[in-house]
């Protein structure tokens, strides 16, 4: 019985971490699909979300909701600015150069955050208290429920957006064939900018909802970014649902590994999974191989 309770505990915390990885992975996938590059600054948007919220809430004394909204807005503007200043001017550059630029940008954003907010670790108060709830013998924090709820909302919203709105469809069209998209009158540059804006918004949201559980500091973006990258590699870049499943799977494996083997292997598990997937199934567990019918 004790084992079972432990298992439920690991599964719950694994799933909630996994949901965060899925959100971060979403950001990777959206930018990758629109531009063909991997945005290694994605983790920094996550950090910005958490740190900005701490800043507005704790230092400026704003109420929670305005602090969150303001933080997401600022992170989104940061994403757009990043695209305008660092990506768009090099319009014909090869993806590898742009990827290196995103690494540079991530170092820059991290450094700026350190200069502004210092090296301290900050805690964000949980959204609705720290009174644990008991489910099937396991304890769960209300913050976990927030994480699940918000993740589900983001997934539903993005599915509606990409499948049913004309702008979302236009973004998918650009991702599939940018030249054909421009020939039907879609401004590809706007779509690329939009992909950075959406990624930054989702990333910062992830950073905000995880901050009450894990604390936040100027350098949380590195590890969270890499975990989100693992999620999207496990799931496959092309599959939105795959990214979600990839994130959840990664969170579960980490939590179970940390619980039953050793907590010090928690991060190693993510990298082992990443390497295995890259060796054995580079298109991801749920990604589709391109098939062409002529």
């Amino acid at each position: 019985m004790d084992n079972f309770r432990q298992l439920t505990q690991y599964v719950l915390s694994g799933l909630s971490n996994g949901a965060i990885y899925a959100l971060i992975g979403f950001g990777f996938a959206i930018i990758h699909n629109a531009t063909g590059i991997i945005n290694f600054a994605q983790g920094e948007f996550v950090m910005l979300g958490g740190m900005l919220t701490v800043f507005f809430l704790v230092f400026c004394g704003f109420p929670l909701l305005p602090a969150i909204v303001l933080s997401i807005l600022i992170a989104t503007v940061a994403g757009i600015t990043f695209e305008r200043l660092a990506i768009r001017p090099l319009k014909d550059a090869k993806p590898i150069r742009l990827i290196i630029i995103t690494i540079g940008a991530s170092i820059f954003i991290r450094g700026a955050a350190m200069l502004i907010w210092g090296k301290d670790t900050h805690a964000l108060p949980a959204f609705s208290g720290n009174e644990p709830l008991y489910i099937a013998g396991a304890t769960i924090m209300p913050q976990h429920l927030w994480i699940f709820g918000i993740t589900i909302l983001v997934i539903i919203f993005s599915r509606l957006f990409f499948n049913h709105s004309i702008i979302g469809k236009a973004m998918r069209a650009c991702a599939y064939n940018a030249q054909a998209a421009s020939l039907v009158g879609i401004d590809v540059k706007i779509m690329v900018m939009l992909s950075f804006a959406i990624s930054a918004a989702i990333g910062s949201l992830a950073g905000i909802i995880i901050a009450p559980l894990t604390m936040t500091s100027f350098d949380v973006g590195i590890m969270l970014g890499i975990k989100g990258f693992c999620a999207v590699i496990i799931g496959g870049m092309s599959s939105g649902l795959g990214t979600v499943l990839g994130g959840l799977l990664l969170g579960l494996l980490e939590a179970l590994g940390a619980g039953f083997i050793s907590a010090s292997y928690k991060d190693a598990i993510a990298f082992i999974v990443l390497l295995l997937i890259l060796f054995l199934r580079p298109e991801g567990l749920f990604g589709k191989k391109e098939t062409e019918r002529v």
Partner: protein
Amino acid sequence: MLKIKNINTYYGQVHALKNVSLHLSAGEIVTLIGANGAGKTTLLNSMSGIVPPRSGEILFYDVPINNLAAHQIVKMGISQVPEGRQIFKPLSVEDNLGLGAYLYHRRKGEKEQIKKTVAMVYELFPILKERKNQLAGTLSGGELQMLSIGRALMARPKLLLLDEPSMGLAPMIAQEIFRVIVNLSRENKTTILLVEQNARAALKMAHRGYVLETGRLILEGMAADLLENKEVQRAYLGKDKKEIWER
């Protein structure tokens, strides 16, 4: 309606179009013939803003368009049906058509007109209506070509640029496509610039024609005259092959 004056287009170092000038009048079907690599697709892409010319001028109803981006040229009323169809395969047939009308999505009161245009496209190509909820990736080559033309028509262009619409299609289906093209010109009064491998079929449909060779326009004239032209017959229609050494 359209005047091209002395354009020069480059792909990197390659000088793909050399001092090309041509004009189109409203309501015409004009065909552009030439061998592979002669620059036909490049010329269409220069007009569409995908590979803007480095020098020269393109006037559409006396407005210069050679500095506009591709999506702005669509707004002006020029749509291209690109080589190889370039359909958005992960999206449904209906969504592909919907994206064809992308430039109208922010204007009010366009919904009715968009619906009418979709109905018009389905009337031209009834098979697309049957398949409207299918992913475009599941269509056959002919159906993809129909969808590609339909998608371009959704923007309600004044000028339609068609790049090799019969490529890779069975003769019956190619005939069907050609029939629709002639209909578009007759009934919708759409002006058409047609690039075709099948020079004979193209010249039979067209009012006028231009012959492009290694980036230069070497011949222009009424389509009927070009069909009779000895050079054209020998190089592009496969006639009189023997007579070169029999003569």
